[in-house]
């Protein structure tokens, strides 16, 4: 399309402003972690790394980080298994209700987190409580796995749709049995999609707060819950600033990796 010179300039300016709107808040979080004051007033009087060392030794934040990592790993492991199983069923078989399966997989992430959260909460308290099992890290992992399945499923199913089943058939014609064909042929084909899906699932779990609120037992505090609890306490503000800055800096890495791994699959979108 032939755009006039002024239209081009206007679009450049608009895009520049847009990118500024996207990135200034994130940069602000990073700069603010160097702010010596407890208030968020701008501009900071000077810059200091004092709060970074304070945050490093903060036991609450460390414990919460550890809980988040455990919950993320647990949920990712379950989501990898379940998501891959569904992906193989949907991509390699025809059966009644196949379309509705993709719908059910998306549902946990499409519905508001608070609805999923209280549904799981009341189910856990009616089913698990009589068995003597209370809410805890286990229930957080179950809740997170439920909405992480979709990212693994999306990645693996996209990969399976592009690689036809004839590779496996060829392996079997050459004498490989079902397991051999899976180990030597199918798994290497989907490995990078699994890795991408796993990374996204971990990131999704690591960041989740609403479902966590309703499935975490007493004393179980993930990093987002810790931030949320401490955000409004002026005393803790500098440490929260540092944790937030670290999360901004760290979040870039797995996203970049997942992008590279899954450039051709559903890695670009969360759903």
């Amino acid at each position, binding site marked *: 399309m032939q755009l006039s010179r002024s239209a081009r300039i206007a679009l450049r300016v608009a895009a520049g402003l847009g990118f500024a709107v996207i990135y200034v808040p994130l940069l602000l979080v990073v700069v603010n972690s160097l702010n010596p004051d407890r208030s968020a007033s701008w501009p900071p009087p000077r810059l200091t790394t004092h709060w970074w060392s304070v945050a490093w030794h903060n036991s609450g934040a460390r414990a919460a980080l550890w809980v988040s990592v455990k919950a993320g790993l647990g949920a990712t492991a379950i989501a990898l298994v379940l998501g891959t199983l*569904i992906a193989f069923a949907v991509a390699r078989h025809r059966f009644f209700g196949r379309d509705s399966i993709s719908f059910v997989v998306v549902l946990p992430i499409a519905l508001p987190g608070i609805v999923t959260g209280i549904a799981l909460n009341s189910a856990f308290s009616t089913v698990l409580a009589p068995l003597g099992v209370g809410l805890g890290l286990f229930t957080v992992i179950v809740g997170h796995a439920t909405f992480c399945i979709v990212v693994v499923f999306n990645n693996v199913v996209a990969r399976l749709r592009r690689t036809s089943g004839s590779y496996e058939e060829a392996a079997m014609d050459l004498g490989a049995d079902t397991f051999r064909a899976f180990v030597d042929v199918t798994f290497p084909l989907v490995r990078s999609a699994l890795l991408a899906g796993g990374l996204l699932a971990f990131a999704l779990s690591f960041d989740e707060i609403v479902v966590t609120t309703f499935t975490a037992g007493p004393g179980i505090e993930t990093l987002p819950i810790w931030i949320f609890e401490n955000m409004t306490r002026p005393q803790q503000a500098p440490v929260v600033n540092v944790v937030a800055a670290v999360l901004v800096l760290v979040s870039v890495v797995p996203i970049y990796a997942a992008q590279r791994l899954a450039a051709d699959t559903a890695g670009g979108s969360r*759903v």
Partner: protein
Amino acid sequence: MALLTRTAGALHRRPRLRLSLLLTAPLLWLAVLYLGSLSVLFVSAFWTTNSFTSEVVKVWSTDNFHELFTTPVYREVILRSVGVALAVTALCAVIAFPLAFYTARVARPRWRPLLVVAILTPLWASYLVKVYAWRLILSEGGLADWMLRPFGLSGPGFGLPAAVLTLTYLWLPYMILPIHTALEQLPAGLLDASADLGARGWRTFRSVVLPMVLPSVAAGSVFTFSLSLGDYITVQIVGGKTQLIGNLVYSNIELNLPMAAALGTVPVVVIVLYLLAMRRTGALSSL
């Protein structure tokens, strides 16, 4: 080893067995655990609560829904929530369009993949940190106040506008991406044809570009609308005293779970209606 070979043979001969082995565990998880919990929740919306003990009374009644539609506060909050979700969607579309137009059609082709990554990266940054960033910006003496002070103004502070702004920021990438993809796939021939027929830039935009990109705007709006409608954390952090439907659900959970469940059905029903409306535009097939 012999057993393994025999199992492999059995699996190969019986695709139904293979399928049921694949599906049993995930279906138990999703259908029984997840859909089961959801249905119990929606059934419990028709139960009531003993007002003295806050215990759930499992007697069928539509009182909760009656209350939902007749209490002015509830009606007001529901309308406000839908209004916020629509406002966020409109703002996202208005901001996303020029940005996507630039990344898909104006920027040098060499730069385009890089720009897409630049849009995607903040999408994955922590939700809570992004809300926190806006809390910092909008707090008293924060960046917003500092920027507006030379004009004799001050920032909006915490409240409904702050919540709309923050939600717009949170879900913006979900709107940019589909529009970018649609604009990128727009055949250049169509634009040339429009120019050959004498249309200037603006006319081409209105008659050719916009109709072809609208389904993608609708696709993006599915995310911006439903994610905004269910949110209650953002409103708690930057919304001041503002209440949205999620906050009402949250505040009812402890004392009146059936009422919370009834309130929770509202966003679900609205989202399903919105999805159905968007399906007519063909948006869902481009998701």
